[in-house]
């Protein structure tokens, strides 16, 4: 790999060189004019700006509800978002990008757009923003009265970022790790990290012009039994890398595991730990917020049971006081939801968020213990990553993944070490059955082993891959812990 990983803010002249190439990779790239884009953002009303909304929600201690949504055609996508704003009562909106665009396969995305026109229904699982181009993005942003975010999982999101940010979007999801490891098979980490340093630098440029763009990391990763220590470490590293490039508004993500004490501990420690490391690196002026993803693994097929899963996610988000919750729908197990199904998921969620607005989880011995273990685990991992990089966090990340110091369960990527094996303990908290090469102390390892052994005794079986499979199927079958039949 000859990609160079920056260890400080990328020089603007150097950036512009790469930029020329990026904008040339698809015709719509030519539509972007940064000066004009900055002017556009300057006149964008506050109610359409993500950083402002997050700041207000955090100050009021309330949790915002945001769906996922994206359709192939522009008018169809706008209709979808307007429906979710009006009927779904969404507090903020997404533009979920289709998976061809995520892989920079703009030709195939075009085929999807054309076929969608012919079939009269969306043949793509999201909105192909690059193909539609900049003016279309502005139509989207202006079509609704709440802020809109780009949501995707794109290892090389440079062109997507150029077009959508100039297109008036005020928040951009992703990161060099979280958009690679769960979303790609063959992309070297050096490359995705460098691509995302570009995205962050672009946002840093907007910031220099006085335009704050929110950046969000994709916490859930593979959505499947990812323990908090892994997603936290990834989130913190992505926050450090973003801050390095001048990003000032960062949202840290976490995907619900299912045990509410562990989940609440995770949301609380996520922000605390990120703050700790940002401070350590001298980034004191970052605005932080958190986003909680309702259960990201396999869902029950039955819609009323799906409502149960959605409700439980809403409760945890509210009690843990996450700034934002990403909402699932009763169609989750089936496919991309209709706009109606999507609205139902948001409304069920909002009912709970509103009812719990004035309540929070009290401190307890159990909560404290969960927080402590997460803090220890994350420090063990992140400190080692930093050490590995010899003050270059991006480089440290590459090396850490090689060495299995960072490892994501069930990830498709070949650059992932792939030795971690998570399983639930007897109370449903996600622990580790196999630690791979995680740099854990004996104390931490014993804690996990003890917890899983306790479950083994309860179920009268040796912990094994079968236990993991049972856990993966469990929620789809109406349980949290996959007990043997």
């Amino acid at each position: 790999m000859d990609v160079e990983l920056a260890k400080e803010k990328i020089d603007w002249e150097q950036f512009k060189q790469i930029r020329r190439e990026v904008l040339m990779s698809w015709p719509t790239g030519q539509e972007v004019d940064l000066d004009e884009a900055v002017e556009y953002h300057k006149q964008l009303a506050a109610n359409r700006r993500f950083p402002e909304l997050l700041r207000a929600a955090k100050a009021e201690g309330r949790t915002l509800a945001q769906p996922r949504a994206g359709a192939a055609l522009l008018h169809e996508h706008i209709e979808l978002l307007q429906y979710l704003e009006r009927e779904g009562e969404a507090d903020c909106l997404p533009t979920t990008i289709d998976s061809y665009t995520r892989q920079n396969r703009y030709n195939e995305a075009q085929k999807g757009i054309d076929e969608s026109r012919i079939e009269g229904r969306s043949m793509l699982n999201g909105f192909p923003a690059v193909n539609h181009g900049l003016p279309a993005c502005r139509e989207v942003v202006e079509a609704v009265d709440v802020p809109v975010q780009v949501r995707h999982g794109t290892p090389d999101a440079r062109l997507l970022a150029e077009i959508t940010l100039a297109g008036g979007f005020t928040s951009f999801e992703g990161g060099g790790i979280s958009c690679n490891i769960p979303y790609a098979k063959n992309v070297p980490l050096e490359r995705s990290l460098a691509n995302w340093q570009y995205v962050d630098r672009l946002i840093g440029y907007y910031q220099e012009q006085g335009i704050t763009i929110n950046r969000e990391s994709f916490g859930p990763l593979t959505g499947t039994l990812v323990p908090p220590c892994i997603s936290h470490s990834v989130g913190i590293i992505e926050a450090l890398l973003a801050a390095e490039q001048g990003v000032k508004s960062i949202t840290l993500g976490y995907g619900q595991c299912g045990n509410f004490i562990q989940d609440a501990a995770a949301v609380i420690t996520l922000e605390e730990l990120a703050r700790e490391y940002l401070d350590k690196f001298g980034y004191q002026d970052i605005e932080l917020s958190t986003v909680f993803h309702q259960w990201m693994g396999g869902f029950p097929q039955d819609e009323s049971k799906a409502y149960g899963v959605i409700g439980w996610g809403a409760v945890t988000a509210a009690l843990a006081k996450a700034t934002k919750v990403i909402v699932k729908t009763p169609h989750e197990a089936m496919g991309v939801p209709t706009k109606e199904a999507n609205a139902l998921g948001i409304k069920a969620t909002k009912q709970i968020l509103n009812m719990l607005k004035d309540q929070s989880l009290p401190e307890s011995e159990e909560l404290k213990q969960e927080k402590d273990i997460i803090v220890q685990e994350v420090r063990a991992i992140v400190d080692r990553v930093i050490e590995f990089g010899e003050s270059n966090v991006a480089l440290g990340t590459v090396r850490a993944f090689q060495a299995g110091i960072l490892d994501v369960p069930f990830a498709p990527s070949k650059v992932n070490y792939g030795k971690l094996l998570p399983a639930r303990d007897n109370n449903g908290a996600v622990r580790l059955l196999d630690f791979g090469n995680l740099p854990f102390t004996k104390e931490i390892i014993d804690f996990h082993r003890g917890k899983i052994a306790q479950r083994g005794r309860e179920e009268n079986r040796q912990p094994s891959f079968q236990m993991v499979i049972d856990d993966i199927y469990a929620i789809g079958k109406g349980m949290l812990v996959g007990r043997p039949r």
Partner: protein
Amino acid sequence: MEKNKKITIVLGVIGADVHAVGNRILHHAFSEAGFNVINIGVMASQEEFINAAVETSADVIVVSSLCGHGEIDCRGLKEKTIEAGLHNVKLYVGGNLVVGKQDWKEIEKKFKRMGFDRVYPSGTMPQEVIDDLNADFS
């Protein structure tokens, strides 16, 4: 087919699709059930499926498509197997085959017309496919 010859399955997730969890479980389940599994993983192109089947003289190709692009991604696969001379290889497909919740009967018809021998809806448990494999190859 002789009883002791293991049936060979080429398994993969087609197109730009990265959903890896079901693939890993199917791999595990098929192996446990005594099949010979060649797993080409996620983001597999039609060519990769064909090449793997040719190389391993596979009996069946099991295609997963979860992300919704199944219609676009699977089109033409049957024709390619014939071009490659894999006349007897069976084609199975399953997952969340289209975008959104649609009438299953319609989806099944569509994929059968594309040349798939068996089409499975989302939520199909591995045991069901294993039973069908045993039925198709006994």
